[in-house]
Each structure stands twice: as structure tokens, then as C-alpha cells.
């Protein structure tokens, strides 16, 4: 992850966050270049929001250690906070935190731009440009925000996050609460904004589909960064560069899965449906035929088979499972030794 200093928007080195005795983030490091979209993925409590709260100056320095810079300024110094916040935008998960529903979109824009010291004329022109990119209908601009649809409010919230042309935009769960058909619209608007404005974007999300627009993805679990790279690189780091065999097996049950797992060249078996498993092999081309022969010999009936490239969703699942297994193995080991885990 080499990046030229001027090209780096966010740099995090050895970040630890603790509140009292409770450590929330453990030694997290990553570098984000200008214009990249970064997805922060992880289950609840993984530490995604905590990292963003450090980057947006919301956590006092006494609670964290490490070298962190946003637009070459460290949030460790209070004097930098105003400058960092001037150069960053934030789109909260709930629109009600970002919008005054009783005011019109244009007045909402005025409220927020006044905090950045922008003049009204410029603010209005930037707002109109953003509203156009985000397809906010003209007739809604001067009406009360509460009369807008959920999707329009979401897009207005994104526009307000970008109104002062920040270098970095943080988006908290931008697709949460949006119906399936609109989720892709939101993601596509984000990509469109990113390409037009070259804004670095951090997307905190549970929605693994968001990886589709991410240049980099970070996977967090219990405050630890498990992976940070482009989705393609992460998938290709899987055995056989992420090639998977998808088999539909008649009367699939745990015994059959255990039998498949017992083969030394089988790296991982994931049940993805009633009768469907996805299998990662050590050497996909040669091991697939061996596996099929073995299944045939064992009397396991395969109804259909297809080969595919693993998705980011699958990579995430595998990575989290691996960690859980490691943790379980460690607990088992320490229990066998008769001592509590240290």
C-alpha cells in the first residue's frame, strides 16, 4: 500500500481506542488515497463507527493512540478540529439528524453552509448542481423537506454532506432503511458523485453490496482490521484465486458436508441453500474432478454443478468464519490446558 504523501487523504497507523479498561480498536492501520471509495464492513460492534468518530474528531485524544491524519492534519490536536471538519462531510444514517424537516431543502443548505462560512449565492449554486446530479426534482427544492419521499431525503442528506466540497465524505449506513430497488440507486449516485467531484468516501455499512462501488474495503471484527484492500484483491487472495464450485447435492445434510470437508484439497465448504454448497479448492482445475469422483464413489448424488468467482459477500463470510474458528480453537486449547485464556 505505497502511496505518495500528497495523494493520501486519510492515514491511520496503529490506531488503538479504549474507554477505560475496554479496548474498542486494536492496532488498526490503513491508507486511503484521494478520490477512493472505502467501505468499512463488519458486524455490529466491530468498531467501524469508532474509527470514523476518531477521524471526525468526535473522540477525545485521551481515549486513543496512534498516528492518524485526515487531509494531512491530525485529530489529536484540538486546534486542527475546525480545519478537519471544514474539509470533511458527514451523512448520518438517519436523515432526521441531518435535515430540518420543517425547512425547505434550499434553506437546509443555507443553515449548513453558514457553518462553513460560505456565502448564500455560492451555496445556492453548489446546491443546485448537487441536486441536479442527485436528480432531486426542482419542485421539491422550496417545499418543506418533510414532504419529500424517503429516497429524496436520503439524497438531500448526501447533498448537504457534500455542500462545502469536502475532501472526505463519511457516510453512515447510506443504504439502510432503503428498499432493495433503491439501494442500487443510492450506490450508483454515490459513485456518480465520486467520479464527478473526486471526493474520498468512507462508507460504514452492513450492506455487503456496497462493495460493488468500493475501491478499497476494510473488514473489521471486534475492533481488529482483518483485511484492507480492493475487493478484487481480497477475493483473489482466496485459494484458487477465489474460484468456487457450486454444487446442488441431493438430500444435503451436515454429514455430507463433513465428508466433503474431510478431503485434504477442500479448503472450505459453505452451505448457501437447502441443497447447495459452495466449495473452495486448493487447486481448482485439478481438484474439482477429484472431488466429483470422490462424491460419485461415496454415493453422494450431485444434481448440478457450476463454477463461479467468489463474491465479496462470500469473501466476507469466509474471513469472518475463519476468525471465529481460530478463536474457538484458541478457547478449546486453553480449556484443555486447564487455564483461562490470557
Amino acid at each position, binding site marked *: 500500500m505505497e502511496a505518495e504523501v500528497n495523494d493520501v487523504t486519510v492515514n491511520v497507523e496503529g490506531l488503538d481506542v479504549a474507554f477505560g479498561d475496554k479496548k474498542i480498536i486494536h492496532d488498526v492501520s490503513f491508507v486511503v488515497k484521494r478520490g477512493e471509495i472505502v467501505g468499512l464492513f463488519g458486524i455490529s460492534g466491530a468498531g467501524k463507527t469508532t474509527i470514523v468518530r476518531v477521524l471526525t474528531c468526535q473522540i477525545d485524544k485521551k481515549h486513543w493512540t496512534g498516528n492518524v491524519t485526515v487531509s494531512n492534519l491530525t485529530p489529536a490536536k484540538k486546534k486542527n478540529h475546525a480545519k478537519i471538519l471544514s474539509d470533511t462531510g458527514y451523512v*448520518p444514517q438517519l436523515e432526521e439528524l441531518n435535515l430540518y424537516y420543517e425547512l425547505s431543502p434550499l434553506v437546509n443548505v443555507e443553515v449548513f453552509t453558514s457553518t462553513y462560512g460560505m456565502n448564500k449565492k455560492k451555496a445556492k449554486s453548489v446546491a443546485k448542481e448537487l441536486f441536479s446530479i442527485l436528480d432531486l426534482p426542482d419542485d421539491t427544492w422550496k417545499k418543506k423537506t418533510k414532504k419529500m419521499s424517503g429516497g429524496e431525503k436520503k439524497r438531500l442528506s448526501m447533498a448537504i454532506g457534500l455542500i462545502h466540497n469536502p475532501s472526505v465524505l463519511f457516510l*453512515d449506513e447510506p443504504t439502510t432503511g432503503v428498499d432493495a430497488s433503491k439501494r442500487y440507486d443510492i450506490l450508483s449516485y454515490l459513485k456518480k458523485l465520486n467520479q464527478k467531484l473526486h471526493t474520498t468516501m468512507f462508507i460504514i455499512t452492513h450492506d455487503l453490496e456496497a462493495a460493488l462501488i468500493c475501491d478499497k474495503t476494510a473488514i473489521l471484527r471486534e475492533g481488529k482490521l482483518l483485511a484492507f484492500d480492493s475487493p478484487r484483491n481480497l477475493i483473489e487472495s482466496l485459494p484458487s484465486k477465489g474460484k468456487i464450485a457450486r454444487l446442488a447435492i441431493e438430500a444435503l445434510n451436515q454429514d455430507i458436508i463433513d465428508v466433503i470437508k474431510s478431503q485434504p484439497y477442500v479448503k472450505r465448504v459453505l452451505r448457501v441453500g437447502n441443497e447447495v454448497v459452495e466449495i473452495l479448492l486448493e487447486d481448482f482445475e485439478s481438484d474439482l474432478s477429484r472431488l466429483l469422483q470422490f462424491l460419485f464413489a461415496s454415493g453422494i448424488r450431485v444434481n448440478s454443478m457450476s463454477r463461479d468467482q467468489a463474491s465479496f459477500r462470500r469473501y466476507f463470510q469466509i474471513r469472518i468464519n475463519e476468525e471465529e474458528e481460530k478463536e474457538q480453537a484458541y478457547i478449546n486449547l486453553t480449556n484443555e490446558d486447564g487455564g483461562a485464556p490470557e
Partner: protein
Amino acid sequence: MSNVSSSNPIPTSCVIVSYDSNTFLNQNNFTQDIELDNYTIPYVDAVNMSESLELVNFFNATEEPYAMETARTMLFNKRIKVIIMIPVDFSELLIWGYPGMLQCVPDAAEIQNIQGILNAVQESVNIFIVANNLTPQFLLEGFEEFAIPPEYNFQFNTYSFMILPIMTFGIALVLSILVIVKEKPIARLLLTPVQRAEILLSKYITYSIILLIQVTLLVISSLGSGLYLAGTIGDLFLALFMLGFTGLGFGLFISSLSKTKTEANQLFFAFFIVIILLSGIFIPIESMPFYLQIIAYMLPLSHGDPMIMGIVTKGTSIFSEHFYWLLGISVVLFIISFLIFLRRKYEV
């Protein structure tokens, strides 16, 4: 209504202004050589014996020509509640067996207390009659001071200057108790370069402008409805605004303190009831236990009510001690609200 009687532990403060001379002009030879019995001192003794009255000062008007002016100033400044005047022929009439007469000037700015004041004076008269073996024929002649002129509606005016402070303070509280707790985008605003102090200050400015409009409407509607105003409109306007501004401070303090709207509403009722009860409007502060008096004087209405009452009924200036008390309370409330707001946790 507060009745000051012998059972009341708080005596009514008074001064006696005596015009009763101990010399008598002889009608035959126009000399001053005949001295008659003097009943002035026995009456002063009776006042001192009375538990209902507290004699603050005694003036002999024959020696002090400005005695009455001094006494009125004391009444104006609330140092006393009643002036008892002993007329020039007081002793003479009693000696000749005529009914006695005393003149009283009670502080009628607190209309609800007039009867109590006269009752207290009556008790001193009763003591005087018994102690001096007099026939109980006595006349108390009361002159109301700072009273509402007859052309103004008595009931409206009686209640107006009691209700005006409560209304102003209440409006300001209602305006501001939900300002911080209700406004969800504040958390997001804190992720801009704007400072917390600036947010709080902006609230003060915005709601002060709204209060200004409310107070203007209150003053116009009160005067339009026939409020008798002894003072100036400017003083009344400023006094109401100052009291309202303290109310804003109190409201913002409640809003900063509360985590939810329900909590803010509950705190509002709790504080408002206590502030009204201890304001002195319904229960005189002097009759409260000492510790309650201390609390009462820390509360805004305890200063707002007498300040507005003074302007309305006596035409006093706004720049009394009450104004500076309110100013002080406002500053303290702003500082406390700011400190609470500074520590308030916001998460987006």
C-alpha cells in the same frame, strides 16, 4: 390574601408620624402655658407592645417638618408597610371624651395585603384602649397609597400585574425548554467547524428576538385592555423583557439538562411550580421559613414580580436591585447551561 393578626409571627413594619403636640393654645389669652395629658407616647407604647406591628421609626412632625415625606419614601422603598399618622388634636379629643382617630397610609401596591395591615393597626389600638382605660370609640381612617385610580378597572389591574410576570416568564420557558433537546441536527452541526458556544449563543439570539415580539404584544395588549401604568412604557417593556430573558436562560438550562422531551417537560412543570410558589406573588416571602427565603431570592420571579409591580403601581425605575438580580441570574444560568451543553454527549 394575607391577614396579619396577633397569631402571625411576621409583624407589619410601620412608622408613626405624630402631629399631636403636647402644648395647647389657651383660647382665653392665646398663650401656650397649658399642658394637657399627652396620649402620643402611650400609643407608641401600645404599638411596641403589639405583636402585629414592628415600629421602625417615630417622627415628631412638629419638630421634623419633612417627617411625612421621609415616611412616604420608606413606604415607596418597601422598608415599611404602613404609615400611622397621629392627628394634631389626638390627645385633646381623647381627654375631652371624644372618639379617638388615627390615620393610616398602607402600601396598596399589594392590594391583597391592605386588610391585613389595617387589622394589625387595629390590634395596637385595642391595646392602647385597654392600657389607658379609654372608651372603645376609635376611628381608623385609611388612605390608600399607590392605588389604582377609579377610572381604571380595579379587578383587571389587581390581577394584571400579578399575571404579567408569570405570563412573561412562562412564555419564555415554554419557548426554550425544548430548544436543545428537540433539535436532532445539533449532533450533525457539531461535525462542522461551528463551536458549541456559537450554537448556544445563536439559540439565545433567536429566541430573544421571538421574546421581544412576545413582550411587545403583551405590553400592547395589557395597555390596550386598560392597565394602569404609573411608570414608563419603556421601563415596563424592559422589565418584562429582562424577566423573559431570565426565563429563556432557565428554559435553555432545562433543555441542556434533559435527555428527552418528556424529561424536559417534567422538569419544566417541576421548576415552574416551585418558582411560582416561592415568587412571593401568592405567599409573602417574608412569611416563609428562612431557608425557603434564601431559595426564593435565588429565583427569577421573586425579583421580576416586585420589579414589574413597582413600575406598574408606583412608577419606580427598572434599575432597581431586582433588575441586577435578574441580570445576575441570567448570567449564571447561561454559564451553567453552557457548561452542561459542553459536556452533553452527541452521537450521529
